[in-house]
């Protein structure tokens, strides 16, 4: 019999090589946090330019105060699932607030964004249904599809024509059909062509789920995401989002106008059989939601920072994964994997943290340094990030 971990021997060797090279991205530790954009890493003060802290709300005094109050009033955890003893007034308050903010009839909150996708996809779809997903979908979407037992059809990234062809070829038969796309794709920062996808509904029968994990708070007049920005909210049947990005907490949500949406509360296993989110998490998230609602200027600053970083890196000759629009995710394409690893190390040594994203998990097998901005970044910090990229490139000149 084979040892179960033997299958990863090659992967392990590759990782060990990376670590020997100095890049232990997998176990990089933030020793201390100084602010939404600063931490101590390897003993050095570092600018965080690789988080999903788009609205910069993780250290807001009122959110922290709300978390503390929740700890005192409701305790450290719920020790039970939402359908047993785990629903507290706070969960209901957050669901109501999100439904209102998103302008939808119903909202469910989940313990993680990952489980929001698992619950929604495997809750909505079963073996008789067909799911159409973008090739570059997040892992939680792929895993949700697998859990559902549905027929899964993959279309090329953001390729509406390819999706249309696939919809034509896979008729509905007995079951239903669900198309899933993302507001902002996390690796390159590009958006789904949502208007065109919604337009497909005129000719093809399907329901549409949009994962606004990275676009919630960021896109749209009021921050409701890509569906709002594209002006097609009515064409979107289900929206999934997360608390661990713009809302600075942990957990996920789904909203819908479907009259029977709440059936998922007793049909979706990753909602039913997991401990409810902690009181502190609900309270800080609720406070952050109010904050981004009350302070739309955060979105403006974010977009200014995004443009600043995007333009700055382009001007310095860096090739970006996407520059078709202003986006808070700015991914620098490295010519080779060793170049990416070396530059990532050099950036860290220069006091800038970005995400190291290596093939095969990346779009088009690109070796990426994924930077992202926060509304809490100052223009000086963005300049420092751009300068660090230049310095890092110079330091690894023999590799690029």
């Amino acid at each position, binding site marked *: 019999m084979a040892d179960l971990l033997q299958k990863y021997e090659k992967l392990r060797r590759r990782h060990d090589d990376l670590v020997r090279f100095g890049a232990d991205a997998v176990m990089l530790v933030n020793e201390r946090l100084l602010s939404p954009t600063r931490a101590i890493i390897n003993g050095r003060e570092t600018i965080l330019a690789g988080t999903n802290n788009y609205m910069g709300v993780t250290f807001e005094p009122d959110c922290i105060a709300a978390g503390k109050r929740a700890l005192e009033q409701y305790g450290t955890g719920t020790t039970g699932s939402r359908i047993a003893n785990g629903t507290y007034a706070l969960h209901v308050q957050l669901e109501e607030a999100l439904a209102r903010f998103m302008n939808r009839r119903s909202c469910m909150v989940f313990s993680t964004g990952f489980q929001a996708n698992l619950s929604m996809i495997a809750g909505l779809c079963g073996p008789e249904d067909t799911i159409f997903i973008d*090739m570059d979908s997040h892992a939680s979407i792929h895993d949700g599809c697998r859990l559902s037992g549905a027929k*899964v*059809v*993959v279309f090329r990234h953001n390729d509406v024509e390819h999706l249309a062809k696939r919809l034509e070829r896979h008729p509905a038969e007995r079951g239903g059909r669900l198309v899933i796309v993302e507001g902002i794709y996390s690796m390159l920062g590009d958006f789904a062509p949502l208007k065109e996808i919604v337009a497909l509904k005129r000719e093809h029968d399907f329901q549409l789920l949009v994962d606004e994990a990275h676009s919630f708070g960021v896109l749209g007049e009021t921050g409701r995401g890509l569906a709002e920005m594209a002006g097609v909210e009515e064409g979107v049947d289900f929206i999934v989002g997360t608390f661990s990005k713009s809302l600075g907490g942990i957990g996920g949500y789904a909203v819908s106008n479907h009259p029977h949406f709440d059936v998922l509360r007793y049909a979706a296993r990753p909602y039913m059989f997991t401990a409810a989110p902690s009181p502190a998490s609900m309270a800080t998230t609720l406070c952050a939601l109010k904050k981004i609602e009350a302070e739309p200027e955060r979105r403006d600053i974010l977009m200014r920072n995004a443009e600043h970083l995007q333009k700055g890196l382009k001007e310095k000759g860096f090739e970006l994964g996407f520059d078709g629009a202003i986006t808070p995710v700015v991914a620098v394409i490295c010519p080779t994997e060793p170049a990416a690893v070396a530059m990532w190390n050099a950036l860290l040594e220069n006091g800038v943290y970005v995400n190291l994203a290596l093939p*095969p*998990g990346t779009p088009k*097998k690109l070796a990426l340094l994924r930077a992202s901005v926060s509304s809490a970044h100052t223009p000086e910090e963005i300049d420092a990030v751009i300068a660090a990229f230049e310095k890092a490139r110079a330091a690894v000149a023999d590799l690029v």
Partner: protein
Amino acid sequence: MTTAHKDIEATIMRLLQAYNKEEAPLSPETNIAADLNIDSADVLNFVMEVEDEFDIDISVNELADIHTISQLAALVAERVNAD
């Protein structure tokens, strides 16, 4: 069978060459992912090219039981001739 299995295999092998970085020899019994060391994303890309070439669709679920070139050719033949 209106489209010959052998012809389909030949076309598949031609499309597969772009992913066969180690230039391993190809036969109908070649295990596409394992023998050629192709990761899951590239298997998807390769299958999309096969779909385009034959103007058919293959779902992710069907791929679970497909390992060799011959098995893929059989599925393609079934799909092509069903149209």
